[in-house]
C-alpha cells in the first residue's frame, strides 16, 4: 500500500499512456496538447493567486487572522475544525480560484506536511465551488425556484469540511 502511493504518479502516467496507445490515440501529441492547456490554466489562476495571497498575507501580518481564530476557535474546535482554516472555509463555497489562493497561503505558512496544511489541502480536494456551480446550472436551465438545492449543497460542504479534519486526524 505504501509503495502504491509512492509509485502512484508513474503508475497513473504509464497506465493512462498504455490505455491510450491500445485505443489508437496519439498519446504523445495529446499529452503535449494538454500540457499547453495546463499553461493556460496557470495564466488564468495566477492573477487570482496574486490578489488573494497578498490580501491573506496582509491579514496575517496585521494580526487580524489570529484575532478571528482566537474568537471563533472555541466554537469551531467543538466541531473538530481548526480555527486557523476559517478563512478557507468561508471563501471555499464562493470562489474556487480564491479558495485556491487562500488555501495555498495556508499550506505554505503551516507547511504541506503539517496537520493544518494537510487539512487545508484535503478540504480543497474534497469540496467544490458551491455557489458558482448553482448559479451556472440554474442560470443555464432558467430556474427561478431552486427549492432545496442550496441547503442540500451546503450540507454536503459542511460535511466535507468536518470529514476533511476528521480524516486527516485519523489517517496521519
Amino acid at each position, binding site marked *: 500500500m505504501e509503495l502504491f502511493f509512492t509509485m502512484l504518479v508513474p503508475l497513473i502516467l504509464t497506465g493512462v499512456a498504455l490505455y491510450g496507445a491500445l485505443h489508437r490515440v496519439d498519446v504523445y501529441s*495529446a499529452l503535449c496538447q494538454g500540457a499547453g492547456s*495546463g499553461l493556460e490554466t496557470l495564466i488564468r489562476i495566477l492573477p487570482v493567486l496574486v490578489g488573494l495571497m497578498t490580501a*491573506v498575507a496582509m491579514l496575517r501580518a496585521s494580526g487580524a487572522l489570529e*484575532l478571528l481564530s482566537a474568537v471563533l476557535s472555541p466554537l469551531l474546535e467543538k466541531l473538530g475544525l481548526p480555527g486557523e482554516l476559517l478563512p478557507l472555509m468561508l471563501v471555499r463555497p464562493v470562489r474556487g480560484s480564491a479558495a485556491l489562493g487562500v488555501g495555498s497561503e495556508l499550506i505554505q505558512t503551516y507547511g504541506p506536511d503539517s496537520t493544518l496544511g494537510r487539512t487545508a489541502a484535503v478540504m480543497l480536494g474534497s469540496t467544490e465551488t458551491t455557489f458558482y456551480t448553482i448559479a451556472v446550472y440554474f442560470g443555464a436551465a432558467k430556474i427561478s425556484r431552486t427549492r*432545496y438545492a442550496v441547503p442540500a449543497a451546503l450540507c454536503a460542504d459542511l*460535511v*466535507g469540511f468536518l*470529514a476533511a479534519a476528521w480524516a486527516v486526524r485519523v489517517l496521519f
Partner: protein
Amino acid sequence: MTMTVIWTGMAAVAVVCGILTGRGAQVSAAAVEGAAAAVELGISMAGMLCLWSGVMEVMRQSGLAEQLSRLLGPVLRLLFPKERKDRAVMDSISANVSANLLGLGNAATPLGLEAARRMARKSPGIASDSLCMLVVCNTASLQLIPTTVAAVRAAAGCQTPFDILPAVWLASGLSVGSGVLACKVLARLWRD
C-alpha cells in the same frame, strides 16, 4: 462584485488592524511579499499542472470517460429514478459524472448543463428533484485525483504530494453521500 467586496474588506481590515496592533511595517512587507510568493508558487506548480493537464487530455481522447460512464449506469439510475427512461438525459448525466471523476472539469460542465436544460423542460422555472440532485452532485467534489492541490503541496516542498489521497476520497465520499442523502430526505419533506 462579491469578490470586490471580499477583497476590499480584507485589505481594509488588514490596514486598520495593523495600525491598532502596531504592526504597520509587517503589513507593508506582507503586501509586497505576498504578491511575490504567489508568482513563485505559480511557477513552481507550473510543471505538475501542465503534466496533469496532458494526462487528462490523453484520458479524454482515449475514451476513458465513456468507459467509466457505462460502469456508472446502475448507480445513477438509483439517484435519478424519474429520469431512468429518458436515454438522452441519462447519457448526459453519466458523461457529466464520469468527466467530474476524472477531473475533466471543462468537459463536465457543458454535459451537465445539457442534462439540466433537458430536465428543466419538464418543469420550467422550477427545480425538479432530479435537477436538485444533479446540481448537488456537481457542487460536491467527485474528482478522484485532485491535481491542482497536489501541485500546490509539491510547490510548497512536499515530497509525497499525493499522500492525502485516501483522506480526500474519504472526505469526498462522506460529503457527496450526505448531499445525496439530504436531497432524498428533502425531496419528501419539502413543501413549496
